[in-house]
């Protein structure tokens, strides 16, 4: 029997409905009557929302003033609160004649961030390593002082954005090594060590963070020999590093589990010891694999710093709340909403920046692997 051949057709041009601007509109916004309805409703909502926001935040907003009386309009943002108090939000209770020290630290922080944002050819590595080593040391010297003729400033006087950033950096930098050790312990072949690490991690992960912080701040003095009094700010730092190390441990465990078993076996087969295998073969790959999750945890830690205000610290949110309840600014709720919008914007800039950076790293490592 003769095979039936389909008549040969030249490739057809795309149908006119899907070409050009009209085609793009049709595919993305009006592909069915239901989609068209959604598009129209959304355009209406977004238009109204944008209209309201522009009027609220810009056109009707009050930009300058010194008390709640300068913002009588409840349908307008009250940026006067922010412009009046911004020093407090940025520097906290840091002595105003020493602001330059904080400014230097902010500048160094910016330089550190810049060193990680771009590539500088063969200098990249040295630049980044120098910044990572120099930054914490100089930041400590400039912020706390008590060295090189710099006046001592107690950590209690940190506040606002400065305190938020200090807590976040200490929590992140402290929890990474601890988390790595815990993750190695949990994935260890030694049953007892693995069990101990597992219980330790699961305990911290099962309890609200505020409970842990209150526990450390209120109860730590009972558990250490008398005489070794630990500052209350330092206690909060320890609490942050402790419970975040459990989350970091889970991040690194994910990275360790993503390494094929052959890598372990091959390194053992050529006679590497456990620490050599981990240090040269497994950890470099595992840490690279866990960078996206690590960045997510960093974002979570940054957001979680807000809970220190509940134990009386004046971090960014805390100092805004205190200022809102001060006699000058206590007033109708629209000042609260403006202040919270401002705070949200600041937090958003940091967290969104971190998530964008992590996405870029991910894309780059995907390209490198291909």
């Amino acid at each position: 029997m003769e095979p039936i051949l389909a008549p040969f057709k030249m490739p057809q041009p795309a149908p006119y409905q899907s070409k050009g601007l009209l085609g793009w509109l049709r595919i993305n916004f009006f592909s069915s009557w239901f989609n068209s309805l959604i598009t129209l409703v959304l355009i209406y909502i977004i238009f109204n929302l944008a209209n309201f926001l522009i009027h609220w935040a810009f056109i009707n907003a009050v930009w300058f003033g010194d008390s709640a009386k300068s913002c009588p309009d409840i349908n307008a943002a009250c940026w006067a609160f922010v412009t009046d108090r911004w020093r407090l939000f940025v520097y906290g209770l840091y002595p105003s004649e020493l602001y330059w020290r904080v400014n230097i630290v902010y500048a160094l922080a910016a330089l550190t961030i810049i060193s990680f944002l771009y590539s500088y050819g063969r200098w990249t590595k040295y630049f980044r390593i120098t910044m990572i080593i120099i930054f914490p040391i100089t930041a400590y010297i400039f912020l706390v002082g008590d060295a090189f003729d710099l006046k001592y400033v107690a950590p209690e006087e940190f506040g606002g954005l400065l305190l938020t950033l200090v807590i976040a950096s200490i929590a992140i930098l402290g929890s990474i090594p601890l988390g790595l050790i815990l993750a190695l312990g949990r994935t260890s072949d030694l049953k007892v060590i693995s069990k101990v690490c597992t219980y330790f991690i699961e305990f911290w992960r099962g309890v609200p963070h505020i409970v842990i912080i209150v526990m450390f701040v209120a109860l730590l003095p009972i558990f250490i020999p008398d005489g070794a009094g630990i500052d209350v700010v330092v206690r909060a730092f320890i609490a942050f590093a402790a419970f975040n190390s459990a989350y970091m441990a889970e991040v690194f465990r994910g990275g360790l589990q993503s390494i094929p078993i052959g890598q372990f076996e091959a390194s053992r087969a050529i006679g590497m010891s456990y620490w050599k295998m981990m240090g040269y073969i497994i950890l470099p790959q595992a840490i690279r694999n866990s960078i996206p999750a690590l960045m997510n945890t960093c974002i979570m830690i940054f957001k979680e710093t807000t809970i220190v205000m509940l134990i009386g610290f004046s971090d960014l949110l805390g100092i805004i709340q205190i200022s809102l309840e001060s006699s000058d600014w206590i007033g109708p709720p629209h000042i609260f909403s403006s202040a919270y919008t401002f705070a949200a914007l600041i937090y958003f800039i940091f967290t969104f920046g971190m998530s964008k950076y992590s996405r870029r790293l991910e894309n780059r490592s995907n390209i490198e692997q291909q």
Partner: protein
Amino acid sequence: MENLLSFWRKGSVRSLTYQWGLVVVIICGMFWVYDIATTNMARLGLKTGFDFLTDEAGFPISPALIDYSPRSTYIEAMIVTLLNTIFLSLIAIILATILGFFIAMFKLSSNLLLRKFGNGYVEVFRNVPLLLQLFFWYFAALKMLPMKRSSISFFDVAFLNIEGFFIPLPILEGGAEFVAWAVLIATLISAIIWAWAKHRQKNTGQPFPSLILGAGLIILLPLLVAWVLDFPVTWEVPKFGRFNFEGGTALEPEFTAMVFGLTLYNAAFVGEIIRAGIQSVDKGQKEAAGSIGFTNMQTYSQVIVPQAMRFIIPPITNQYLSLAKSTALAGAIGYADFFWAMDGAIAPQTGQVMELQAITLAGYLGISLFIAMLMAIYNHMTRIPER
């Protein structure tokens, strides 16, 4: 010496030494800390023991799901606030899951505007600290609501104003228990039908509309019973009296703000988890299902979702756990949750911080373990059997 070194180099000897060494260190450390703690507590004159639990609490708890008065004991106060925490977590988990599902649908939609809208929602609500959002809802948004006299009315049965959300309350009359029995019996019958249908489909391949039948049974049978009994439930609608609303029940602003904040914040995460889960299913699965004649609905319910579940369950469990834990922030806006009672009310009155801390930790660990256990059971039920 040579012998000793080779003995030490033996893997099993070393691993046993490390492990027992760790155990000894931990036990010694515990004794040491215990010793320090007892000396310090004696020095500070702290009371110990759990006798205070049966003392009178003396403080009011405003949303109380079970009977409670300031004359109740501390242990009753703990139970009431623990129930508040569980109730709040449960409501927020359900609402966040529903909203998160819609967010995921938005982000998977073919409509570009809707996708961008879902994206914007996720970025905004995920990147702002939860505590800030709770403050926003409580101190800014809910405080902008009108006073009691000019409440926002929803069809004249529910009223929203600055003092809370006033909703109708069902009042049960005689015979209401029969309706409850009808619900129970209908559920049982549907379960039996479902099991039989599943068994039959496995053996013969014949499908049976057990889902529709079961849903119909569970809705219609109680309705029928209620109709026969002339509807033994009346709704007590809140009415504005001279100064206040009478009848119905009020959801306090603290509770409303907590539910709002927790739901909107966690829905962003849940939405991302569901979207990632659905996108993790290979495109070929959808095409294959389509090519053997599945409808879009069947493709999703029979092919995509069961496979996506495997990717969704572990992260969503973590999200539920994190939600339940973050209810501890409720004290910051004055909702009477477990942590507020322990740290804000009972600890200052009794001063027994050690015992209270232990109970707090146990309470939250219990909630976490319970959620983890439920999700593990669910995960076991929906897992894809491997060959």
